[in-house]
């Protein structure tokens, strides 16, 4: 394996001073293997949502990097995330996608684990092991840290990683745009049954950078804009509130998270939406009024796609969903997409949104289909020896970022790019790769948590 010299990635293959990134980080298999260790075993990763495992014994099989993990609720109601691999010979102890069970039993030799991970069943424990096996040491491998944040469940393998909210930093208030109910309260959300899963032939960083804030690729979606699938009957989304807003990109250099947002001018109301369905329109109008009232000036902010480092994508406003880009080798990504609704919304609202989500996102989505095409062939055209010699350009808008950004009395934390006139910038993308390069170079969390 190649030795890691400090700076091999920071200002090396990822040269953010010059705005250039080598194609090697997307197509090189050794870098991919290193990434599995350096990034995916140390970062906080999205596992699922509380609403997927409401009852004791409920489980949902998820993934962390290339590894299969089990999210489950034990008999006492506590949540756990376990490596889905028997401690005896490694067999996957759960080959189902979800369900409810008192134990996870390995079909190979029959070792059986309770939903709290304890090894409870060992065939012939007396006769063959003579009770010498220390069962307490051979429970399912559990993640080093797990946190539930407003219903979303996160985990990391690294005991030295900072707590999840510290990992989020000030990005928390932007992530909340995905997790708060539409009326701005902490009333629960729920995952609509059915997590979409599909494969894309590209490196996982293509979608990750795209959701970080690729504001430049709108042209890709012209065909869907032409046919109109938005909730109000036109466009892709409801764009009215956006037309009145300042359009910003916000990034957090020390964390690697970033998102787009829209900010209404002080004093202006939120535009109506969902006019196609009066019941849905009423629901959202009322929710929005409440949100504006609770949140005050911050209520002027609405969300737009974002990315929590490394591989969780946010789609906070419409269609509201969370996606994870699971790496499946250097050249393939398995996408999982969860769709969220207010748990307490009337059926008509849930039904309306569900149909909108399906026609917008995922492999059957009129919008996302065109994204996948771009990622696929961007990747494949970058694999050749000659192609690899030519770095990608990330120079757009360099040097125009601002801090201490303020708009009509509303302070926006983080590094901000105002795209209202500039139309587009790659600041958020640079931010993502800067953090990625730090993860690749840093030997431990001591270096990565340099805000401490």
């Amino acid at each position, binding site marked *: 394996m190649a030795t890691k010299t400090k700076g091999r990635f920071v200002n090396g293959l990822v040269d953010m001073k010059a705005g250039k990134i080598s194609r090697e980080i997307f197509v090189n298999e050794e870098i991919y293997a290193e990434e599995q260790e350096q990034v995916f075993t140390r970062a906080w990763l999205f596992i699922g949502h509380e609403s997927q495992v409401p009852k004791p014994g409920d489980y949902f099989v998820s993934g962390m990097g290339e590894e299969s993990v089990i999210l489950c609720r034990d008999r006492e109601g506590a949540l756990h995330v376990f490596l889905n691999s028997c401690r005896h010979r490694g067999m996957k102890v759960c080959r189902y996608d979800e369900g409810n069970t*008192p*134990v996870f*039993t390995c*079909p190979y030799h*029959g070792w*059986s684990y309770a939903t709290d991970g304890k090894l409870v*069943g060992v065939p012939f424990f007396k006769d063959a092991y003579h009770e010498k096996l220390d069962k307490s040491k051979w429970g399912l491998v559990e993640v080093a840290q797990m946190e539930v944040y407003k219903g979303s469940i996160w985990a990391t393998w690294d005991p030295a990683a900072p707590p999840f909210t510290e990992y989020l930093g000030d990005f928390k208030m932007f992530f909340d745009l995905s997790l708060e109910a539409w009326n701005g309260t902490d009333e629960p959300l729920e995952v609509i049954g059915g997590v979409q899963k599909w494969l894309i032939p590209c490196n996982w960083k293509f979608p990750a950078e795209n959701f970080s804030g690729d504001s430049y690729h709108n042209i890709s979606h012209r065909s869907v804009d032409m046919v109109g699938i938005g909730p109000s009957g036109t466009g892709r989304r409801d764009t009215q509130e956006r037309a009145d807003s300042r359009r910003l990109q916000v990034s957090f250099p020390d964390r690697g998270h970033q998102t787009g947002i829209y900010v209404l001018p002080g004093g202006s109301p939120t535009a109506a939406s969902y006019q196609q369905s009066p019941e849905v329109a009423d629901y959202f109008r009322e929710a929005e009024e409440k949100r504006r009232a609770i949140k005050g000036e911050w209520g002027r902010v609405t969300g737009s796609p974002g990315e929590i480092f490394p591989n969780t994508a946010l789609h906070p406003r419409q269609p509201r969903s969370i996606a994870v880009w699971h790496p499946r080798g250097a050249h393939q990504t398995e996408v999982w997409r969860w769709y969220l609704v207010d748990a307490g919304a009337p059926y008509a609202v849930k039904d309306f949104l569900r149909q909108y989500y399906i026609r917008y996102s995922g492999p059957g989505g009129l919008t996302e289909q065109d994204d996948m095409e771009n990622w696929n062939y961007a990747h494949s055209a970058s694999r050749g020896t000659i192609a690899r010699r030519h770095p990608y350009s990330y120079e757009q808008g360099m040097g125009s970022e601002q801090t201490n950004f303020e708009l009509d009395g509303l302070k926006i934390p983080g590094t901000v790019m105002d795209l209202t006139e500039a139309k587009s910038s790659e600041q958020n993308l640079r931010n993502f790769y800067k953090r990625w390069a730090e993860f690749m170079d840093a030997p431990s969390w001591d270096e990565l948590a340099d805000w401490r």
Partner: protein
Amino acid sequence: MAEVVNVRLLKAGDKLQVSHGATVVVVSNPLDGVWIFARYLASPKDPSLEGTEDMIFAQDIIEVLEISGD
């Protein structure tokens, strides 16, 4: 060789003859096809087990003594 028992089909209340001469009653079935949660009714070799609950391995089940009523 006695009939191989499909433990997936066992229900709470079923009585089983298990190894070491013990009899147990099924408490619940995890439906993994491998284990049964049961309580010892009789255990001549180790009477201290009587009344305790334990996980019984499929291969330790010798035969089904009684199928519960319902």
